[in-house]
């Protein structure tokens, strides 16, 4: 990726760490343009508010769930970026938090990042993660007559597709 100057990435990490010392469990620069922040799930809205208002990260590129049945957790990742500040156009900040596999619940960030609307709906449907405060948490992609656990969980297996 050419010449790399890590200072902007480190700045984002340091700002979040010093603003939320107890909430941010881990902040690291993966490589140039990528930052991963692991945090406590109860404070997602404070972090989102700070990142939007103070750091300029104004949109969510996507919300991903990852199921880890052996660790009994579902990891939720928010991919956050900025349009309004051209000097951080290239950054993707990955906000990560762990939810318990039974009854995964987290506050919705739609009131702060409206762009998360459909992404949270998708993660709700595919992983059963309940986003509290989401204005319209409905099924999105699967059939109306699909009754069953969220399809992206690892214990939903489709043997006809082969071994996993």
């Amino acid at each position, binding site marked *: *990726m*050419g010449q790399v100057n890590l200072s902007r990435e480190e700045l984002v990490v340091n700002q979040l760490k010093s603003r939320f010392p107890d909430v941010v469990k881990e902040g690291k620069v993966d*490589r140039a*343009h*990528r930052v991963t922040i692991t945090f406590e799930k109860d404070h997602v809205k404070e972090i989102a508010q700070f990142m939007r208002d103070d750091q300029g990260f*104004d*949109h*969510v*590129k*996507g919300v*991903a769930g*990852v199921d880890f049945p052996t660790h009994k957790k579902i990891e939720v*990742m928010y*991919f956050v970026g900025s*349009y*309004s500040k*051209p000097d951080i*156009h*290239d950054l*993707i900040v*990955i906000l990560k938090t762990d939810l318990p596999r039974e009854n995964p619940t987290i506050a919705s960030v739609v009131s702060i*990042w*409206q*762009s*998360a*609307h*459909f*992404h949270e709906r*998708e993660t709700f449907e*595919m992983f059963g993660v309940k986003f509290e405060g989401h204005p319209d948490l409905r*099924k*999105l*992609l*699967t*059939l*109306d*007559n*699909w*009754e*069953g*656990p969220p*399809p*992206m969980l690892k214990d*939903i297996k*489709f043997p006809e*597709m*082969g*071994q*996993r």
Partner: protein
Amino acid sequence: MTAKPIQTEPPVTATRITEPSTLDVSVGPQHPGSGHCRILIRVDGDYIVSADPDIGYVHRGCEKIAEYRNYVSNIPHLERPNISDAIHLNWGYVLPIEELQGVVVPPRGKYISTIAAEMNRIMSHLYGLAIMQGVFSGHTTIFMWGFGDRDLFIELAEMLTGARMTYSFLAPGGPRRDLPFGFEDRLSRLLDYFEKRLVEYDRIFFSNPLIVARAKGVGVLKREDAVKLGVVGPVLRASGVKYDVRKAEPYGAYDDLEFEIPTFEEGDSYSRYLVRFEEMKQSVSIIRQALRKIPKGPIARKAPLIAPEGEATGRVESSRGEITYVVMGDNSDKPYRVKIMNGSFRNLIALPFLLRNVHVADMPIIYGSLDYWPVEADR
């Protein structure tokens, strides 16, 4: 995993009266030009009061399937969601795998990928121009012209990759084939022809007073709304945000090539048409430079079939905007998780936003100007 029988009663989506003066109408889920999708609109007379997109008619669980297939056999089905833009879906998936494996594509491979991707961008924008913008505004000439000229590019894509639409051209490590004999010559002659055609497109479509009357000022997405909604690609650039992954985080050979990012301030349907038109001109220039600068040497490195533990995020600028792929490896030949964040799904939020207080007749114009591809959004 049980499926209850499909309701026998007529679904609530059939036309019914909700409030004294409004009517709920289900638009779709027929194929409106790019895939099956339904929009529930509430109309008050001739005006749309609100719209609720009901997507998922072409959902096939790409992310789930990807966990069952190995890294290479994932390529054909992951590029399938958008057949008109297959190279970009393919490339976005390959980038994070290469990052995990630590494989670096040789320069010639990067240039070949870039040429293929820009050809694909032209093809995809021609499809959008012909169907999504031409047919939806009742302009049959541009439909025929756009599709006819797109086929010339398809022929060259077939010459390069062996397939007309879904190429599976890029694997971890680099493209599958080198430029075939005589390809550069044919491509530059095609570009000469295409540049002349672009002038004619402008005269028959973009400067056509009927098109201007129907699209200008319709479906205005202001800059701050575009940022807030997180839309991407031409839709974002038509609202005045200069954001393009090819510049923000250059991949392939874009670092070495010079090009502009066309932006417009108006944010209406017409400027979304124009962004794509200007992008085609830029693509022509990018391909010309790439053909001139392409270095000699190997095209690909051998990549392992296994990816180590870890996760990587890669992104490319597809025809419909940024596509971000997250690939999580677990030391096996199959990904633990693949997450796709693509332009169509991110632009979906603009649809209910724009379909408010507009005429029903403006709906096809707005829908077409977003270049929304339901299959890509549903995955």
